[in-house]
């Protein structure tokens, strides 16, 4: 019986280790003022100009849009907040939250994203994302997009997000 118990003990230890919150994220893409940005990426998107009937450069119909995602860790002992973002590839950048209610998806701009002290905030489909509105160039997979993130405490953090296909 004893070897079985020992085996089960180690199996349990292994499973706990595998499920633990310390899942290996690798090195952060950026670490600055206690804020770590992990695995930043943006969704590839084509331009709209030259497509369809409306060719006015600034009309809403020709504005191409995409989103950027990442994991933000706050290693400080103080709550922080992502207040805004900007990028050279987009005319405007907003922070959005997607919510689901009775199977209906809504997406709206939010004031910011809180990153609790010692905690993290995940920007992922179905939750938060950085919204890039009015793309100035086609975002092709393999390119990188520079995002300037502004935090309440950590200040400006610049990160390179890899463009990936959907």
């Amino acid at each position: 019986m004893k070897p079985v118990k020992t085996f089960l003990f180690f199996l349990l230890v292994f499973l706990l280790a595998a499920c633990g919150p310390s899942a290996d994220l690798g090195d952060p893409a950026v670490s600055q003022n206690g804020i770590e940005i992990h695995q930043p990426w943006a969704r590839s998107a084509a331009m709209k100009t030259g497509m369809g009937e409306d060719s006015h450069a600034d009309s809403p119909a020709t504005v191409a849009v995409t989103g950027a995602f990442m994991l933000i860790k706050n290693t400080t002992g103080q709550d922080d907040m992502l207040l805004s973002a900007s990028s050279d590839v987009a005319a405007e950048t907003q922070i959005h939250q997607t919510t689901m209610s009775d199977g209906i998806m809504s997406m709206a701009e939010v004031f910011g994203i809180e990153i609790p002290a010692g905690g993290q905030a995940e920007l992922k489909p179905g939750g938060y994302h950085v919204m890039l509105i009015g793309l100035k160039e086609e975002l092709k997979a393999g390119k990188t997009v520079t995002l300037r993130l502004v935090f309440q405490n950590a200040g400006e953090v610049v990160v390179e997000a890899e463009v990936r296909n959907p």
Partner: protein
Amino acid sequence: MNRQTILFASLALLFIAALLVTQTLMPPRMNGSVIDPPLAVDNFSLHSVDGPVSLSDFRGRYVILYFGYTSCPDICPDSLAKIREALSKQGERAGEVQVIFVSVDPARDSVEYSDVYVKRFSPDFIGVTGSEAEIESVTRQMGIFYQLNEPDDGGFYTVDHTASALLLDREGNLILTWPYGLTPAQMEDDLRALLRR
């Protein structure tokens, strides 16, 4: 072997046998929500970059309808990517399923851009849209909700919409919906069960 062991073993065997029988005879449990009885969908016609697309064009094949808009960088691409992944596991039989993305935002989504948007997921997907009235006639009969929100200062607006994918059988009846949040593996199982029919 004592009597107790034999009794236990027989019970266990009986249980396994019963399980196998119910598994093969009962219709497989779907991960999506089954529409029972199936809802007959009136034929409709929308527009793609290659011309009109009617539901009746796909008789004999399953159709997956997803309603969204291309300015959605979040749920829409996530759902389409998951559907693609589930389909890619069906091998040759994937050809018996047609995925159609319907843009409910024709003011911003031309047929050209709807096509470009959807082709980035798969060259086999079709992107369609139509006039407001044409879209209404499709969404209303299938219980799809959508609403264009107020534009912000820059003129950008979001669209609230039902995030479920709809599955229509080979005769064009609505038989299953996939709520947002199902995994590709769950969709894959549902598709496999459907394609066996």
